[in-house]
């Protein structure tokens, strides 16, 4: 008979890798019951934490890589356990043991060699802006636009960067880009337990921003927003960061842009985890949408703190998710359920996942996925 003995060495290793939080868990299971995975398959967050507590954990298990770091569990955890830190630690150890999923290895390889997870060349980072006549950021430029690797390289997500630049020009904002001098923000790398890679990416960005005396950064991705705002300051980052939805609100309030053209459609809004739960930005995106004439804003059944993740956070965007296990499909269903014609988003990962789901579900005739920047650009 197989005998299980607690392995304190394993739990100590997890704690050492940053998983200290696991000690506070009192095993109530609220995390499991809040986790979106349980909408599509069984995933017992609580059990994983307990297995970590007593060191009886299969580090090679697929479960270690499931967490999308959406924060739904952390939001409500009665003991304030930073569950995401536990997953970061488990993955860090998993990486040392060489059990990282293959697609993650490829993305991380790309980041190591060229500063982006898309295995694209660093020199091509500003190709999206080639014919747009955007100036390179120089000392004294008011605003740095940092599009994130995804809109910079991915053909579908590129429309976010294009719309944003269009708006900035219409509003007469003095802005520039850094192009090949930028690195990936490193959010996913960190959540995948690749702390060293994260540190080197962050250092590269912070140095570049300092070199050009960047004071204010506009981002399209809530993941970049979170990392720049909450994690870079510990590493010496000293600049203001603003998410596009906040910036649009600012431009509207200052009268620099005016949503004038009617948009007579039913629009629903999906709160990205890293803008909502992680940073409590709930109002600005809604206010921007509400400022558009004739736009009817309807809420999804699970919204704000309760919003269901698209499935792309925590590095999940680089991993394969089985067709019947995609949270983004559930979210599309919710949007259709409330009768929306447009699902408004404001995160490049959300865009990739929802675009995929829409195609797979064959619902592209009834629902459109639009970034808030696209929507605004159409009506000013």
């Amino acid at each position, binding site marked *: 008979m197989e005998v299980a003995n607690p392995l304190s060495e394993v739990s100590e290793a997890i704690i050492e890798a940053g998983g200290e939080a696991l000690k506070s868990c*009192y095993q109530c299971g609220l995390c*499991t*019951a809040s986790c979106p995975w349980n909408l599509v398959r*069984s995933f017992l967050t609580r059990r994983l934490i307990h297995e970590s507590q007593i060191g009886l954990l299969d580090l090679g298990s697929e479960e270690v890589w499931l967490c999308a770091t959406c924060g739904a569990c952390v939001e409500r955890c009665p003991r304030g356990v930073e569950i995401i830190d536990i997953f970061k630690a488990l993955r860090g150890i998993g990486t040392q043991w060489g059990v990282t999923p293959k697609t993650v290895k490829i993305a991380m390889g790309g980041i190591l060699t060229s500063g982006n997870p898309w295995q694209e060349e660093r020199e091509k980072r500003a190709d999206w802006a080639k014919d747009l006549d955007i100036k390179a950021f120089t000392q004294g430029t008011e605003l740095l636009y940092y599009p994130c690797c995804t809109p910079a390289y991915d053909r579908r997500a590129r429309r976010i960067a294009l719309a944003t630049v269009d708006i900035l020009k219409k509003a007469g904002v003095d802005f520039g880009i850094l192009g090949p001098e930028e690195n990936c923000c490193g959010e996913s790398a960190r959540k995948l337990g690749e702390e060293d890679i994260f540190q080197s990416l962050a250092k590269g960005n912070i140095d570049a921003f300092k070199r050009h005396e960047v004071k204010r950064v506009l981002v399209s991705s809530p993941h970049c927003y979170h990392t720049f705002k909450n994690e870079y300051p510990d590493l010496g980052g000293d600049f203001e960061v603003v998410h596009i939805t906040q910036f649009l609100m600012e431009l509207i309030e200052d009268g620099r842009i005016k949503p004038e053209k009617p948009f007579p459609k039913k629009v629903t809004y999906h709160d990205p985890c890293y803008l909502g739960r992680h940073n409590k930005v709930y109002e600005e995106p809604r206010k921007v949408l509400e400022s558009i004439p004739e736009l009817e804003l309807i809420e999804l059944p699970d919204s704000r703190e309760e919003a269901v993740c698209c499935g792309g956070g925590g590095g999940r965007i680089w991993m394969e998710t089985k067709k019947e296990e995609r949270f983004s499909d559930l979210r599309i269903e919710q949007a259709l359920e409330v009768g929306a014609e447009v699902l408004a988003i404001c995160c490049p990962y959300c865009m990739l996942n929802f675009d995929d789901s829409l195609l797979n579900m064959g619902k592209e005739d009834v629902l459109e996925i639009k970034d808030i920047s696209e929507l605004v650009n159409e009506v000013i």
Partner: protein
Amino acid sequence: MERRIGVYVCHCGLNIAATVDPKEVAESAASLNGVVLARDYMFMCSDPGQELILKDIKEHKLDRVVVAACSPLMHEHTFRRVCREAGINPYFLEIANIREHCSWVHDDGATEKAKELVRAAVMKAYYDEPLETSEVAINPNTLVVGGGIAGIQAALDIADAGYKVYLVEREPSIGGHMIQLDKTFPTLDCSACILTPKMSDVGSHPNIDLLSYSEVEEVSGSIGEFRVKVRRKARYVDENKCTGCGLCMDECRLKGRITSEFDLGLGMRSAIYTPFAQAVPNKPVIDPEHCLMLKTGKCGKEGPKCVEVCGPEAIDFEQKDTYLELDVGSIILATGYDQQDPSAVPQYGYGKFDNVISGLEFERLSNAAGPTEGQIMLKNGQTPESVAIIHCVGSRDKNFHEYCSRVCCMYALKFAHLIREKTNAEVYQMYIDMRCFGEGYEEFYERLSTEDGIMFIRGKASQVTDRAQTEEEKGKLTVCVEDTLLGKFIRVPVDMVILCDALEPRADTEEMAKVFSIGRRADGFFMERHVKLDPISTLNDGIFIAGCCEGPKDIPDTVAQAKAAASEVLSLLARGSVEIEPIVASVDEEVCIGCGLCEKMCVYGALSLAEPEGVMTVNEALCKGCGACSGICPSGAMSLSHFTYRQILGQVEAFSSY
């Protein structure tokens, strides 16, 4: 100045001696200025330890004593007594705390630190001056604030012993939360049946002056001689004339049209009302928010019916709030708790779904004297076929209250029993840990576990939703939870959800703490003097706390605390007077410039500027000896006896000379 100081270094078993070398500390002290002998001893607080000091004082003509041992909170009074017995002023004793401040918190260097602490204490002792305690007579009257079970019990115990009690209750009737409950765990006796006899005793007790519908606004003075200002809210009914016949309530034009606070909005009342049938005093009040006469000056064409039917002409729309000044020797606070608003935990849908109710609402539903005459029913009048009880709503939760509310597990079991007794509904208990620790509690848990139709699911529910995923869930409320024992995420469709919402400090606890000059704990409840050894006293002498104002507790514990508070008061009354510590502030009138800074710092109101000279004066009865005034005084005019500049600077000098 010649001094003869004795130094005693305690081992406290290994509590001190494990990290501090008491011998070395004593040897080092022996060479200090004024020290004539220094000893170490296993337990200074033991009888032989005390004897040792007593003998030395006499034989070696010691005039100052330094004991290096535990915190002065523990044994300062012991060694002061020894000094007094040996014939020297008790304030010639100094304690060097080498346990809590040294041996318990250091490994390396503890002996060196102990030596320094002793050196500073010797210096302080060197400059200590003799002080005399004074005596204050205890006023034989007592104030009890709050007329729930705690206040009722404390008032009765003191009154039965022959002393006068003023019982102040904010609501129109005494009874508190307990009178709202249906049955009480674990014995299932009816709450009103066991409480109303005590309530009537209060109402008719010759030694109890019941001031219902009243609030304490100001408290001044100190132990033995408190002065309390009480606002008696206008009842608009003359209590002396009213016979409590209740005709006015029946005739009120608004009868059945105003939601009843007592029934938590589940039942209705009139504008003139008593909160419930067995109210004490059984005299109604008029609610000025709703009464047509008070709001508009008009009530129907023929005038107010209450006036018409009131034989003794007790109704008085002209009544105003009045104020009473009471002199009392001690005060018991029994102000109870608030039930946390469950809508603060939005994921459970309280306020959004009709059939998500709070624990107290269930008590009213299940109570035979309640709005449904004891029938457990849904909002639409139907009987539920299934009920979920969610434990720990806002308790044991860092997002709300970190503490355990202590009563919920047991009342949840009681609810399950009542539901099974009155309906055929299946009951699901969603719990984290079952905490059934009191007398008969575990037995009750076992009894309920074996009853049919009650299921225990170990897990904290994540949400209550009305969005059905299956046929079974349609038209139901579904509770999402991980059954952590199964390791399975499950959805439980039910008709009714009861939330065991947390017991929390009264909304005005902070204000009350200021009025009574007592402290609050980090969790917001009133703070006891010592969590284990002095749980009834507060830091304000003569003010005691009982029941849930000190933290969540069940009825047996509340009654025990109330009786303990009464015994504290009776012990003061038996003594008749108390010694007052002579450690108070004083003013050097020559130096004081009357800037008033210290007056602003004094939280006890002990300082005031004496006009016209413009010099500060100290009310010694109010001064608690905290030293805030002498710390802030820019001219050095304010000083605190036993902590004078000379004494404190002497200690500092001792540290810095190292």
